């Protein structure tokens, strides 16, 4: 019962003369959990940022939930896209002048038009879900990196997205805080959320993802079952990369 939720065709992105994405074709099914791995500079974060149009692609086509959001060189239906797709950033990007509940509630009220009471109820429920019942009134500078990142996840979930994008969300965390964030992501994956996660956590990719994608130099080099891609890579570039990052 798979239904495509994101369809990407021939996606290209250049920064000046530098081509970062050189023609990406990718279809993500509803409920699928996809991890994107690859060396730095491979274009994996840019791919993610192009999917919700934080970067404007140079060419190609993106369709989200049967609505074309980029084509003919320009964004379309941007409101629809931002409603369907939530994003979590490496640097959390919480709003420092708002406390945890306000961070999660603001866009619910201003974008979705929910009442303040309704939004706050939802925010508290989500903050509870990510294990922060006790921290709802704290400001970001009083929270650890891991806690901030979990607030950021709750903030994105509050918009009821169809798809969640995770851009190296554990890379800025102290090692002991990584697990808490991964646990939340794992729970989210188990609940059936469609997720695309750019990550350096090979263990997470192996255990949680339905599909692992290896990118290098702006193209998808290899993709498939995580056990295959990570355990028995076919491509020589994938082998070299995994040889460098996996112990033993």
């Amino acid at each position, binding site marked *: 019962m798979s239904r495509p939720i994101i369809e990407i065709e021939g996606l290209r992105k250049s920064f000046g003369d530098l081509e970062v994405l050189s023609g990406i074709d990718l279809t993500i099914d509803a409920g699928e959990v996809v991890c994107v791995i690859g060396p730095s500079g491979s274009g994996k974060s840019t791919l993610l940022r192009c999917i919700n149009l934080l970067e404007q692609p140079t060419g190609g086509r993106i369709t989200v939930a049967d609505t074309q959001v980029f084509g003919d060189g320009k964004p379309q239906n941007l409101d629809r896209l*931002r409603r369907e797709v939530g994003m979590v950033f490496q640097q959390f990007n919480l709003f*420092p002048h708002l406390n945890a509940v306000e961070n999660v509630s603001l866009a619910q009220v201003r*974008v979705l038009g929910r009442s303040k009471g309704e939004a706050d109820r939802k925010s508290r429920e989500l903050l509870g879900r990510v294990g922060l019942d006790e921290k709802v009134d704290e400001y970001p500078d009083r929270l650890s990196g891991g806690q901030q990142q979990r607030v950021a996840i709750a903030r*994105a979930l509050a918009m009821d997205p169809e798809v969640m994008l995770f851009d190296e969300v554990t890379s800025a965390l102290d090692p002991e805080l990584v697990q808490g964030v991964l646990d939340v992501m794992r729970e989210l994956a188990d609940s059936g959320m469609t997720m695309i996660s750019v990550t350096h956590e090979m263990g997470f990719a192996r255990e949680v993802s339905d599909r692992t994608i290896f990118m290098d130099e702006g193209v998808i080099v290899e993709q498939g079952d995580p056990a295959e891609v990570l355990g028995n890579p076919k491509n020589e570039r994938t082998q070299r990369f995994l040889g460098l990052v996996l112990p033993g």
Partner: protein
Amino acid sequence: MDAFFQTYFDFQIIDENFGYVLEGFWWTIRLSLLGGALSLLWGLILAVLRQLPGRALAPVRWLTVAYIDALRGIPLLLVIFLIYGGLGALASEGVIPRDLGIPRWFGLPSPFWYGIIAITLTYGAYMAEVYRAGIEAVPSGQTEAARSLGMSHGQSMRFIVVPQAVRKVIPPLLNDFIALMKDTSLVSVIGLVETVQAGRDVYSETFNASALTLGAFLFLVVTIPLARFVDWQIKKQNLKFQRGAP
């Protein structure tokens, strides 16, 4: 030494003219508070106009930049003369309504309002630059997060960027306010007897500078605490910064 004290600290002259100078200082205060408030508002509007997105709004951005450059490059004294000389003439020609040309709003005299307009036009431009620095100091991740949540440019500016920017620029804005307060004395050239003019009036009658000393002292009563307050604010921000908060 006696002559020095006689010239600057003649308490009898200070005593006799205290009310007159204080009345002038009351104009200074009103010019500063109203001019300061309007400049803060006008400066913020200019800064936001300058940040409007998209190609279609480029002319608005250029006009805003041109305005800011022009008003920062002209002496306030000259702007005061331009407003004073221009508005009255335009009103008598019938180009603009008389109420605008010779404003006497809220029963206050027109030199006061000419001064308020000139101060707002000039200091709005200065403050726009301060706000701009604050807006540009808000990390781009903040706008990206706002956009990824579906907020428009306007919503992101209003709820995310401007509240953070304003907090960052309170100290430099207060510094501009201190400068503004001192510059209100320029309005005396079009006939408003504010602190400095009051002191000069006394001087030309008595050939003694003590009323001017009194004026200086009245300024310091406000500006020194303000300067200390600015320092305290900066210190508070630095502490917050050291703690690792954005």
